[in-house]
C-alpha cells in the first residue's frame, strides 16, 4: 500500500530521492504491522515465539458419553452428573420462573432454552442472529440479553419459547469503537432492580477509553446509565451477597507478564466509584511495568482475594439454597475457566470461597477433574463458565468447551 504512491513518484525525481523513499517504504512495510490480535497485545519481543494461545470451544459440542465425566470430583456427599448436552458453547446461565434454563454464548449468535420434561431435557434455539450474546439474566417474566453493543429485553418469553417475542432495546451504543478485545458482556440484576454489566478493556494492557474497563448499571425503567466501578480489566461474573447486598465480582488480570503474575482477582464493592487499578496497578499490590510508572497501588482499592494467575475466573454465585450443608450458605462458588497464558496450566475447576467474620476470604477446591495434563495442548477436556442455583438447591454449571451443563447435588448420609 505504501509502495503505490512511490511507483508514481519514481520517474519524477532523482535517483537519490527515489532510493531514500524506497528505503523508507521498505522500513515501513514490516515495521508497521496493524494491531495484533487483542490476546497478543502487550507481548514482549522475547515472548514473540511463545506457543501459548487461547483455546476455542467445540462449537458443535461433544457428546458426554465420549468424555471422561467420571473423572470429575466433588467433596464427599456431593454428586456431579451431566444434566444436558448439545448446547453450542454453553456460557452464561439464567433460570426462568417456570424452570426453563436459558443458556448464552459468546462466539455463536443464538440463545438457547433447556426445558426439563420429567428427566429428559429438550434444547430449543429461542433467539437467533444476535451479536455475541454472552450476558443473560431473567427476572419477573423477562429475559434480558447483553450483546456486544446493547441490552435487550424479551417480555413473557417463557410463555412462548417456540414463538419468542421481539426484543426491545433497554440500552444500545455500548461498543462505539467496535473494540477488538473483551467485547462480550456479563449481565446481572442487582437488588436495586438495575441491570449491571461490564465493559472490558479493549486489549490486554491498554489505556481504556471512556466507560471501558468498568462495571456500569442501567435502570431498565428509565434507561439511565451510571458507571459503578472502574479499573476493572474484564469481569465476566458478578453476584450480590444475600445478606450484605454488596456486589462481588471476578476479574481477569493482564497477560504476558509471567506464569505467576499477576493474579486474577475477586473483588468486593462497598460503594459506587471504587477503582480497582487497571491499567496502573494489578492484584492490588503490583504496578504495571509500563502504565505503573509514577503511580502507587495505594491510589486504588485492593481485591478481596487472589484467585491464581491466568485462571480466568468467570461465573460466581452465592449459595443460598438448603440442599447443601449449612456451611455452604452465603459462600461463593466460582468457575475458573482455566489458563492459556501460562506454560503450566491451572484452573479448569470450581472453587468455593468463604469469608470469615473479619472479612478475610479463603479459597478451596469444590470441583476438579477437567485438567488432564498441565503441560499438554490442550491440557483439559472441559472448561467451566457459569454457575446457577436451581430451585431445589442443586447447582448447574456450564462447560463451553463441550456445550454441556452439569448438575451438582448433595444427599445427606
Amino acid at each position, binding site marked *: *500500500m505504501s*509502495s503505490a504512491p512511490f511507483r508514481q513518484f519514481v520517474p519524477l525525481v532523482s535517483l537519490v530521492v527515489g532510493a531514500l523513499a524506497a528505503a523508507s517504504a521498505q522500513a515501513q*512495510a*514490516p515495521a*508497521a*504491522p*496493524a*494491531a*495484533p*490480535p*487483542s*490476546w*497478543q497485545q502487550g507481548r514482549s519481543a522475547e515472548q514473540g515465539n*511463545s*506457543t501459548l*494461545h*487461547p*483455546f*476455542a470451544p*467445540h*462449537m*458443535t*459440542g*461433544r*457428546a458426554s458419553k465420549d468424555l471422561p465425566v467420571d473423572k470429575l470430583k466433588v467433596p464427599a456427599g456431593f454428586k456431579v452428573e451431566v444434566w444436558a448436552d*448439545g448446547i*453450542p458453547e454453553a456460557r452464561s446461565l439464567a433460570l426462568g420462573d417456570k424452570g426453563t434454563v436459558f443458556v448464552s454464548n459468546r*462466539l*455463536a*449468535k*443464538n440463545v438457547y432454552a433447556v426445558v426439563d420434561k420429567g428427566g429428559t431435557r429438550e434444547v430449543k434455539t429461542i433467539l437467533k442472529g444476535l451479536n455475541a450474546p454472552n450476558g443473560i439474566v431473567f427476572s419477573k417474566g423477562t429475559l434480558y440479553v447483553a450483546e456486544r453493543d446493547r441490552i435487550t429485553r424479551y417480555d413473557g418469553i417463557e410463555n412462548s419459547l417456540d414463538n419468542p417475542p421481539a426484543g426491545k432495546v433497554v440500552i444500545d451504543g455500548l461498543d462505539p469503537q467496535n473494540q*477488538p478485545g473483551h467485547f462480550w458482556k456479563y449481565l446481572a440484576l442487582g437488588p436495586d432492580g438495575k441491570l449491571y454489566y461490564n465493559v472490558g478493556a479493549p486489549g490486554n494492557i491498554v489505556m481504556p477509553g471512556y466507560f471501558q474497563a468498568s462495571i456500569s448499571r442501567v435502570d431498565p425503567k428509565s434507561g439511565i446509565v451510571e458507571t459503578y466501578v472502574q479499573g476493572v480489566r474484564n469481569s465476566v461474573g458478578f453476584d450480590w451477597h444475600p445478606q450484605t447486598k454488596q456486589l462481588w465480582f471476578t476479574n481477569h488480570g493482564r497477560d504476558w507478564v509471567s506464569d505467576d503474575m499477576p493474579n486474577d482477582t475477586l473483588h468486593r464493592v462497598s460503594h459506587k466509584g471504587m477503582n480497582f487499578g487497571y491499567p496502573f496497578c494489578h492484584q492490588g499490590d503490583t504496578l504495571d511495568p509500563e502504565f505503573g510508572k509514577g503511580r502507587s497501588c495505594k491510589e486504588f482499592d485492593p481485591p478481596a482475594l487472589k484467585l491464581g494467575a491466568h485462571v480466568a475466573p468467570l461465573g460466581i454465585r452465592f449459595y443460598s439454597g438448603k440442599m447443601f450443608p449449612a456451611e455452604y450458605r452465603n459462600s461463593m462458588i466460582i468457575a475458573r475457566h482455566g489458563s492459556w497464558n501460562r506454560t503450566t496450566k491451572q484452573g479448569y475447576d470450581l472453587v468455593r470461597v468463604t469469608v470469615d467474620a473479619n472479612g478475610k476470604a479463603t479459597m478451596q477446591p469444590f470441583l476438579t477433574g477437567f485438567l488432564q495434563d498441565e503441560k499438554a*495442548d*490442550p491440557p483439559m477436556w472441559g472448561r467451566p463458565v457459569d454457575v446457577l442455583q436451581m430451585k431445589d438447591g442443586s447447582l448447574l454449571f456450564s462447560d463451553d468447551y463441550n*456445550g454441556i451443563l452439569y448438575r451438582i447435588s448433595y444427599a445427606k448420609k
Partner: protein
Amino acid sequence: MNGSFRSAGAAALAAALCFFAGQAVLAADPQLCAVCHGPEGNSIIPANPSLAAQPEQSISIQLFQFREGNRKDVQMTSMAANLSNKEMNELAAYFSKQKAAAPSHKTSSENAAAGAKLAQQFNCVQCHGPALRGQQHIPRLAGQQYEYLLTQLRKFKAQKRADLDGNMTSAAQPLTDKDIEILVDYAAGLSPQ
C-alpha cells in the same frame, strides 16, 4: 499427453460433478463431500479445500459456521444446512483420520525461504504450528490447495471472511498483496504430514 493436462481435465470434470452434487441436499455421507473435496478429502479442484488430515475441530467448526450462516458459500451453505452437530462431528472425525495426499503445488524457489520468514514474522506459525499443519480448531495450511488459500487469505485481509474469534482477520491486516502471494505459494507446497 502431459500430467498437468490430464490433471486439469480431471479437475474440470470433478468441478462439473461437484456443481451437480451441490444441487442435492442429502444425509451426512463422506462420499458426498468427496465429490467436491476429492477422494478421502484430498481435493483436486483448485478452489476447494482438502479436508484429509485436517484437525478434527477445524472441520466441525467450519461446518457449524456454514450451517449457522456465519460463513456463506453457494454450495456449502446448503450442504451444511441440515446437518446435526453429531453428523458434523462424525464427518470431522472421518476426514481428520484420512491420509493427506502429496501437495499438487510446488513452491517457487525464491518463495521457499521468503515464505518461511513471513510465516514467522506475521505469526502464522503461532497458531498453525511450525510446519503449518494446524492444531485443534486451527486448520492445516501445509499442502492445501493454492487457489483456495489465496482466496481465503485475501478475504481475511478484506475483512470479509467469517472468523470465529477475529484472530485471522486481525492477523491478515498487515499483509501486503505480495506477502499474501508469497505466503500462499509457500504454504501450498509444504508437506501436509
